């Protein structure tokens, strides 16, 4: 069952490659290219940034401080490490900086809301 799928995909791939220039073929078959998880997994990290930005529209009482702060922390830690590894990975750096900033904005919104709740309770 799966071998039939696999054969069909291999056939499709070779048909696509017959139409490619050598330079394009090199990119297509790259070990971290479009066909591999090494490309798509880090690329998909951008969806977390998009989801985070779309959450700016959510009211702050409906946000999770735990989740936002964990995303902020992971974004900032990975930003540092993407600069420490060889080779430096600017794509990883950019996505993680954006994730860290988005998380930080959400954390600020939640804390500001919690502060305002405390102040109204004091009154």
């Amino acid at each position, binding site marked *: 069952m799966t071998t039939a799928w696999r054969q069909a995909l291999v056939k499709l791939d070779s048909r696509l490659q017959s139409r490619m220039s050598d330079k394009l073929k090199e990119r297509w078959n790259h070990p971290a290219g479009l066909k*591999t*998880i*090494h490309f*798509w*997994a*880090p690329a*998909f*990290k951008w*969806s*977390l940034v*998009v*989801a*985070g930005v*779309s*959450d700016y529209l*959510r009211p702050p009482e*409906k*946000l*999770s401080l*735990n*989740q936002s*702060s*964990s*995303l902020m*922390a*992971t974004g900032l*830690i*990975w930003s540092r*490490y993407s600069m*420490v*590894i060889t080779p430096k990975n600017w794509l990883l750096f950019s996505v993680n900086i954006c994730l860290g900033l988005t998380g930080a904005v959400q954390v600020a919104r939640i804390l500001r809301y919690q502060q305002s709740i405390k102040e109204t309770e004091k009154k």
Partner: protein
Amino acid sequence: MSRHARKLFEHVKSKEFRQYLMRYHFWGPVANWGIPIAAMADMKKNPDIISPRMTAALCVYSALFMRFAWMVQPRNHLLFACHITNETCQLIQLGRYFSYSGVTKEGAA
């Protein structure tokens, strides 16, 4: 029993383990553990703080990274374990969100 405990203790004290702690492919996955731990803490809270877009994005993200952690050289079991846990936690949160809000409610909050 104490022989095993002593062996474990000596492994932790060894230079190889300390060097492992200093490598980037240890601390990066440790940072990623924050996400499932945050989700586990949120499971006890009111389900209206669950963001469906972020939770769904994290489900797909962890599925992809499970594969990534397996295929990367060297294979990263810590990252793999982290993303399996996260996948489970995010799916649970997503289930809580849908049972709380009702699937018939239009759009995401």
